[in-house]
Structure formats: structure tokens, C-alpha cells
């Protein structure tokens, strides 16, 4: 039984089996399964686009100490203007066909006067269309300091404030939901 025949056949066999095992291991190990939990990696791209768009809107012209476009939109309650500027920044791209990113923008603030003083409240700035429930949206936000009494409108911009009772500067958070159609 034990003689010295076919030693190299045996070695070759062992080497070949090792090669097959390693190959199978690497091939099986290389598959990565895309689970719902991994979708945040794609969402991150949309978040970056949205944050950049809001940052651009919140930068005053020429870096001056003046009002940024986003501040002006809120102080004048100019929802149509917000739609124009924000949609253009989000969706314009090289070539004729624009991107299809949709948004829903809210302004959140601390109620400065009236019976609900101190509560956090939200009003709608604008939306490219309403949410129906099937959208996979990401959230981005941008801080602004706004003058809550609007000379252009002749009244305060926060709904709770009437008769100019909360004039002065206040912090507000512009929160935007973004999704692709």
C-alpha cells in the first residue's frame, strides 16, 4: 500500500484542490447584496446637492454683509421666487433636459409672541409638488437669521405675530425634503 508511486500526482491534486477552494471562496465572497439599509449611500448624493443649493441661496452677493437670496425670500414671503431660484439650482444641468428633483420646503421657527410663545412652529414655504407617501425623501436644512417684520409686506412674516408685535431679528431653520421622481 505505502510505496513511492504517484507522489507528484498527489501533490498536484492537493495544489489543485487548494486553488479551487480559494477561487470558490473569493468568488462567493465578492458578491455584495444591496439591502434597503444601504440606500443612504445614494441618499447622500441628494443631500449634498440639496445642502449645496441651500448654501448657495444663503450666500450674500459678493460676500457682502447684505441679505442673502434665502433671507430675502423669507422676509418677503416670496414662495414663487424660492421655487424659481431653488428649482434652477437643483435641476439645471449640462444639456437641454433638466433633472427631476422635487422639493418640499418648510420654515421652522420659535414663536416669539402671543399665547404660544416658545413653541416651535412650521409654515410651508413652497413645494414643487405635494408628498403622496411613496416618495423616498431626504432632509436638508439651512439656518437663517431674518428680520421678522417685512417692510415690503407691511406686516410680520411669522403667522402668530400680528400688529408688528415681534419685530426684530429671529433665527429660523429652512427645512427641505428632496426626492427624485
Amino acid at each position: 500500500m505505502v510505496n513511492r508511486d504517484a507522489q507528484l500526482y498527489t501533490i498536484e491534486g492537493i495544489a489543485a484542490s487548494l486553488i479551487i477552494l480559494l477561487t470558490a471562496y473569493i468568488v462567493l465572497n465578492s458578491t455584495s447584496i444591496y439591502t434597503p439599509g444601504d440606500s443612504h449611500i445614494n441618499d447622500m448624493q441628494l443631500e449634498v446637492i440639496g445642502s449645496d443649493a441651500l448654501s448657495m441661496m444663503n450666500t450674500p452677493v459678493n460676500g457682502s454683509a447684505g441679505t442673502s437670496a434665502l433671507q430675502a425670500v423669507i422676509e418677503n414671503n416670496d414662495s414663487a421666487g424660492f421655487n424659481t431660484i431653488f428649482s434652477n439650482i437643483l435641476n439645471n444641468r449640462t444639456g437641454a433636459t433638466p433633472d427631476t428633483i422635487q422639493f418640499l420646503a418648510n420654515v421652522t421657527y420659535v414663536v416669539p409672541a402671543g399665547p404660544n410663545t416658545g413653541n416651535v412652529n412650521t409654515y410651508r414655504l413652497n413645494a414643487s409638488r405635494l408628498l403622496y407617501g411613496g416618495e423616498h425623501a431626504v432632509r436638508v436644512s439651512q439656518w437663517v437669521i431674518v428680520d421678522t417684520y417685512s417692510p415690503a409686506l407691511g406686516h410680520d412674516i411669522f403667522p402668530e405675530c400680528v400688529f408688528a408685535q415681534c419685530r426684530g431679528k429671529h433665527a429660523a431653520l429652512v427645512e427641505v425634503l428632496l426626492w427624485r421622481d
Partner: protein
Amino acid sequence: MARLNDDAQWIVLMGFIVSFSLFFLAIVLNQATVVGQTTAEAVSEFPKEDIRGVRDVTIQSLFLDNNGPYTNQTNVQNEIRILSLNREDSVVQFSSQTDGTHTYLNFHYNNGVTAYNETYTYP
């Protein structure tokens, strides 16, 4: 070969070397996808934009006047704290003092996972 002669030893050796180096290349390729995913996850979990946003607005608030009757600075700074807690899920605490030449802003941010502390000095 199987009859134990000495021919073609180099060819066999080179065959083994090439096949094993292919394995190493395959392992490197195999790891590349995982490394990309881990990095992307680490980046997306770090609240970069949140920290940057609240830090920027806090620094802006330093330059507001605090005269009556509006007391802009006090109002804005309180609202930043409240809105951070309510809408950004983060505790923000800051205070500033001046020594005549410089103003120092001590800024702390914590969202339960990431903590960020900074002393901002101007001018």
C-alpha cells in the same frame, strides 16, 4: 512529471507563482468594494452639514446688536438652542467673552453620537 523526472520544474514553479499572485490580486479587488462602502458609510454618518450650519449661524449671531427693545442677539441665540434641540436632534451650547482685543466663542455641539467643540476667535 508524474514519473518523477526533473523536466520542466521551472514551468511548474512559474505556474504556481502566477496562480497565487492572481489570488492576491483577486483579494485586493474583493476588498476594494468593501472599503468603498465603509468609507461612504463613515462619511454619511458624520453630521458635517449640521455642525457647519449651526456653527455658522452662531458666529453670525455674535455680530448682532443686543439693544432694547428687540434684544436681537439674546433672542436669536435662544432660538438657535431651541431649534437645534427640536429639529436637528442636537444639543448646542455656546458662550462668548471678550478680553478687549479678541472675542472668544466657546462652541459645543453634541448629537449623541458626535461631539464637536471649538473656540472661535476674532478678529
